[in-house]
């Protein structure tokens, strides 16, 4: 994992989130890590204008925190998303950022797993690891999130890794260490 370019995008702003964020930084200490915490950044909503498709390909109309994130996302070997779990989905903060990654794809279609999807604008062998935390994640939420992240790995043109679920009070380091081992495979 040495010098593997890793981008960690996090929504942590409370005690629980910060603990997991710290845990991730420790586990990835040997990699070349760039951490973005969305609660420190200003990120506008995607307004669905599609300028990034046919007016200024790959470039969004908003000039905000995404301008810092995107080049790192493009260059990354490993993408780690750290999010509070809400209804089996990402937190709104992480989702604002994700909606803006539509620039990561060209306007043109390809077929993946028997469905239409967009072609990646920046093809590369990446891996996507997601870490979801909450007081108490129920098993249905975990199933929904697992499906969702599988689909999002296609958007990122990345190999999917099984998400890590962390309930309050659980052994963060142990769970993250296992996921890290999984990433090396």
């Amino acid at each position, binding site marked *: 994992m040495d010098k593997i370019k890793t981008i960690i995008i996090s929504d942590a702003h409370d005690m629980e989130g910060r603990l997991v964020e710290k845990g991730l930084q420790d586990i990835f200490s040997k990699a070349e890590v760039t951490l973005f915490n969305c609660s420190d950044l200003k990120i506008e909503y995607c307004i*669905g204008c599609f300028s990034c498709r*046919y007016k200024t*390909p790959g470039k969004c109309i908003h000039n905000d925190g995404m301008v810092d994130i995107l*080049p790192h996302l493009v260059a990354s070997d490993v993408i780690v998303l750290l999010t509070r779990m*809400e209804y*089996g989905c990402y937190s709104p903060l992480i*989702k604002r950022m994700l909606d803006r*990654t539509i620039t990561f794809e060209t306007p043109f279609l390809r077929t993946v797993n028997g469905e*239409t999807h967009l072609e990646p604008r920046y093809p590369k062998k990446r891996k996507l690891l997601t870490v979801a935390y909450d007081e108490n994640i129920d098993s249905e939420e975990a199933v*929904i999130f697992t499906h969702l992240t599988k689909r999002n790995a296609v958007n990122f043109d990345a190999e999917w890794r099984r998400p890590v679920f962390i309930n309050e009070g659980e052994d963060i380091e142990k769970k993250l260490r296992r996921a890290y081992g999984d990433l090396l495979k």
Partner: protein
Amino acid sequence: MKKVIFLNGSPKRKRAVSEKFLKIAEDCLEGQIRGEKLYIYESEFSDGFFESIYEADAVVMALPLYIDCLPARVLEFMTESKEYLKNRELRRPELYFIINCGFLEYSQNDTAIKIIEKYAEKTGFDYRGGISIGSGAMILQSRKKEALEKVLQEMAQEVKAFYDTEEMQETTVRKINVDMPRFLFKAKADKLWVEAGAKKGLDKKALKAKYY
């Protein structure tokens, strides 16, 4: 008469196809319910906004699929409405959805639908199902237009009638997309973007260019 909130969850608001789908449902309930239209991407989430939702008998939420789930502001709406509603006496307004995705297959909406269902469960809505639309941008210009209008009308009848019946109702998710082989859908969609780019002086290669 039932009070029904029509909730538009697209950032494109009045220009969204979600608005068109909502309008079809709204129109066939004209005069038969008390309707109100709210825009998730326009509103500050005031107490008044959530109070309207709380007081409704039914909420019909139309939204696009964004990155295989719900648009960011719709998630914010969910988080904040849950906070607001948890302090109120349980009323269980019915929740219906109309979700549409840009790609061909309605099956792409399945995960997002599960998220809506989970939200309803955790917030105290009476989840009533809805309509899952694939090829959302194309369908109103296709031969499936009438079939789509029909399912929207069927759902509207349920929105109107639920309290008129005594029995527990089945939850229905109606699914529809254009009737077209994938290669043809791809050819059509790709052509639209090539044409849109050409108007801006950009060829296909330029549309695929790396920016970073």
